[in-house]
């Protein structure tokens, strides 16, 4: 029995799933349930950095706001009939067919309006905030660097070693990633081509206590490590494989994701891979004038979408799909109103993508609200704090201890369901997977998606104390997939359980209602 299946089966075996939550204490479960599982140790996180500030409003288009978007950004807005509709109220940019397909397969999750309080519109400051995961301007470590510092103190001294022979993180290309900056060194190794072999001259240097001496020690440690890590990476690349035919051979994003698939399949134990994509600072010519579905931004999104879809396909073919998850991020979104150069200026919050077999749900968070009146320099207000996303990834994906995670961040963490679908053992239960809520978290309304045979289905909302909040419906449904709106207006913000009672059992999903903004 897998680690979390026990929790799940206890919950489902009682009469009403929510009722058990009433007195259910995780502390009552045996201690080792909370230790990092074997599965989590083998898990890989791939981060794609969209450098420059991605225009979220032309990436994931809120269809219910389309009329006002026409007023604010007519010269760059893509005609509605060209968009790729993924829910009644959301559509993707037409260049994103690959990611649209992943969404349909339940392998893409989108968090809306992700950002941080008091947006700073400098690329540099904002990127520092996103890579450090802190608002403190004096923070020098990256968020994953802090996590790895906790797990592997004293790095880089005595690394690599027999327990940890492989690089902890790999940054594709020639630059290490600020995300992985630790206390004493950067945890990421820059790898341009994993097939390169390393055989650098090793000499002993003495640190005389000056800046010079610190550099000498840094460089000689780096040389020793580069040789050791380089040999591991090289061996894994040669042992590995890649099977998808969907990669674009002429595109760097595709090339790098393919290298990553090759290294993972070759057995490299690296936990984190980082891919950087430049060009998102689209102040002008974001779209081709008169043909807004084409242009620089379309090309960027097409490259990302195609590469991610190919990568996911590759992981599937390689049989390692449940070990790998991915995330995109960008330092900010762009302003709601476009400028006259067919571009957009620096803005605030934007959508963030998670991809992989284990993503929790479709769209998380409500659509942004676009006003019909021009507000100078207005961006999209933040609703989901990016630090909550990071913390939730650490919890769901690396199964880090929530208290330890809390210690890594400045604010009280609000954990979101982001990558927990494999943890719950739901991968063995296709039916349960078919139940999803979007957006989640939501504002006043969300949509429940489920499939059933010709049967009576009862949908209820409970709060976490097990009290019935509302019965959404209880009626006969036709066989197939259904979308049912769930209203939470007038209800306090917080966590709820939505249950779907069918002949085959009761399936529940956690739902979070956000504070009204």
């Amino acid at each position, binding site marked *: 029995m897998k680690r979390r299946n026990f929790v799940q089966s206890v919950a489902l075996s009682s009469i009403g799933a929510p009722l058990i939550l009433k007195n259910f204490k995780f502390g009552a479960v045996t201690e080792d349930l909370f230790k990092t599982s074997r599965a989590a140790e083998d898990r890989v996180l791939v981060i794609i950095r969209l450098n420059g500030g991605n225009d979220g409003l032309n990436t994931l288009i809120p269809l219910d706001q389309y009329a006002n978007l026409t007023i604010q950004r007519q010269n760059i807005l893509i005609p509605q009939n060209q968009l790729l509709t993924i829910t009644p109220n959301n559509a993707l940019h037409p260049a994103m067919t690959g990611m649209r397909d992943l969404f349909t397969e339940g392998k893409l999750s989108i968090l809306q309006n992700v950002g941080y309080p*008091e947006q*700073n*519109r*400098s*690329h*540099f*400051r904002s990127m520092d905030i996103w890579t450090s995961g802190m608002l403190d*301007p004096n923070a*020098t470590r990256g968020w994953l660097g802090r996590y790895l510092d906790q797990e592997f103190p004293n790095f*880089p*001294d005595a690394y690599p070693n027999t327990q940890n022979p492989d690089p902890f993180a790999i940054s594709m*290309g*020639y*630059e*290490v990633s*600020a995300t992985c*900056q630790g*206390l*004493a*060194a*950067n945890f990421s*190794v*820059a*790898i*341009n081509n994993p097939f*390169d072999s390393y055989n*650098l*001259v090793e*000499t*002993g240097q003495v*640190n005389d*206590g*000056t*800046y*010079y*001496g*610190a*550099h*000498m*020690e*840094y*460089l*000689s*440690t*780096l*040389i020793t*490590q*580069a040789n050791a*890590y*380089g040999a591991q990476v090289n061996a894994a690349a040669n042992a590995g494989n890649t099977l998808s035919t969907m990669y674009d051979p002429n595109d760097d994003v595709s090339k790098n994701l393919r290298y990553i698939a090759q290294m993972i399949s070759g057995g490299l134990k690296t936990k984190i891979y980082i891919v950087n994509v430049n060009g998102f600072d689209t*102040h*002008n010519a974001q779209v081709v004038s008169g043909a807004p579905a084409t242009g620089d931004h379309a090309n960027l999104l097409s490259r990302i979408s195609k590469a991610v879809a190919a990568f996911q396909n590759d992981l599937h073919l390689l049989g390692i799909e449940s070990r790998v998850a991915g995330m995109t991020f960008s330092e900010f979104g762009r302003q709601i109103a476009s*400028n*006259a*150069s067919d*571009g957009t*200026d*620096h803005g605030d919050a934007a959508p963030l993508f998670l991809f992989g077999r284990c993503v929790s749900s479709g769209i998380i968070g409500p659509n942004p609200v676009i006003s019909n009146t021009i507000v*100078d*320099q207005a961006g999209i207000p933040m609703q989901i704090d990016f630090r909550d996303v990071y913390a939730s990834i650490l919890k769901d994906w690396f199964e880090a201890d929530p208290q330890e995670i809390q210690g890594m961040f400045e604010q009280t963490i609000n954990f979101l369901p982001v990558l927990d679908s494999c943890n719950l053992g739901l991968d063995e239960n296709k039916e349960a997977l078919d139940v999803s809520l979007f957006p989640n978290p939501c504002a006043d309304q969300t949509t429940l998606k489920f499939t059933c045979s010709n049967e009576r289905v009862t949908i209820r909302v409970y709060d976490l104390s097990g009290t019935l909040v509302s019965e959404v419906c209880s009626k006969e449904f036709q066989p197939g997939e259904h979308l049912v709106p769930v209203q939470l207006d007038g209800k306090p913000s917080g966590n709820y359980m939505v249950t779907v009672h069918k002949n085959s059992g009761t399936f529940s999903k956690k739902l979070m209602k956000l504070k009204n903004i």
Partner: protein
Amino acid sequence: MIPEENVQEPVSLSLTPYTGTWTKAEAAHLLRRTMFGPTLSQITAAVNNGMNATVTQLLTIPGVSPPLAFHADEAVTPIGSTWVNDVYPASNAGPTNNARLFSLGAWFMQRINQPDVSIREKMCLFWGNHFGVDGTNEAKAVYGMHEKYRQNCLGNFKQLVKDMTTDPMMLLFLNGATNNLYSPNENYARELLELFTVGKGAQVGPGDYSNYTEADVAAGAKILTGWTVLDLYSSTASQPSNVFYSVLHDSSSKTLSSYFGSATVPDAGDLEYANYIDIIFSQPNMAKYLCRKIYRWFVNYDLTANVESTVIADMAATLTSNNFEVLPVIEQLLKSEHFYDISVRGAIIKNPLEVLFSMLNASGSVPNYSVPVNYEIYLNVYYLSQVMGMEYLRAPSVGGWTAYYQTPAFSRLWANSSLLKLRFDLGAYMTVTNGIVVNGNAFKLNALNFLDNLSLPSSAPQVIDDILTVFTCKGVSLVEKTVLKSILTNGQPDFEWTIQYNDYIADPGNTTVSTPVRQRVELVLYRLFQLPEFQVM
């Protein structure tokens, strides 16, 4: 690994003139930081001339001859002539423009590969980093912008900012050319404050960055409306130009935040941008931002609280009292006690151009073929530096190269595992292979020329000492020194090297005696270029 805070603090934080010992170590430190790889004779001359005369020489800016046409795709200018005032062909300007951009890239490498004792190229690259332009646009616009850096390289900072604000290339790069009354584009207005002048301070409130606010960015965008660029890729006009259209200018009165004394900027048409820059430069903390950048460029990445309150404050006072003339600040810094403090020697990991040209320049290696071959060779040099992470014409972002601002790694970003491997490969390429070969014409490190100009080439120990003087800040360990010498002598007694060298000098044209000598020096340098000691300056 020693945490940074434990690094030895400078003994002197003073900008008063340095009066300590003046040996090869100090002279080489000065030349390494202000040039790209001094030769042994330049170091020796600096020792003999003394600090003051050497700094004076460094701050004298020799002229340059303009870039020349060399590429087959150039459709207008004859090969060997300069294209900088020539029009484009009436149709299909693209190939000619690419040919001119290739010429520019090669030309910058040629300039850096020059033997002058001058700070010129370090300052030009400094401004290229400061303004962070991705300059692969219309070649004459790119050239014109770089000419502003060169002509003003030790000149007035305020004037340079004004010149850059309406520079055609900059108007194109940060969208000033499409910033107008009907739709302000904030791109340049933001970077002007954040990266070019006052710099961004801590965010102390919503849209409030200590030295300016979001409202200032919006007001600045309006102030700068109306400028655009004409005659790009023109087949009739000799130069692209900027132009001001008052009908596209926002003539409303703009009000700045309290950081600029809540100043009002009334409509002043095409002079309004200059009035605005005057206001920016009147902010009391204005000088510090540039001084920090100068400090990081020439001295050390680590701006400790002590450095901030002493060195930076003093530099800023000099810059302000000289009405933003840059030369007095640089002169004071290069002659200061702090600059020669032992704690800051070797504190900078060389950037890719410093690595590349410390190999080439220090050995007096200059290609000497026809114009097209030389330019083609330099274009290859340009590509080498690009691969190592520093492409002269294209800063990676408007903030410049990350090694000059990204805490806490700074110049270590030039030398992660993958880039370090490239550096080593480059060292091999320039020594023990044929190097860059264009139509059968090879260019690599000239080991014999290097050897001939050392102080006592017939002495193996002296050759090694000279090599360490030229290429390292503090030498290498005794063990490593022995390794290097035994590579030079091929494991034989020192006198065998002397015999071999004397045979070569007696008959320098005879490759049977010169080739073994050249190869021994190449092998020593090949090893040296892989040592951590070579990577810093």
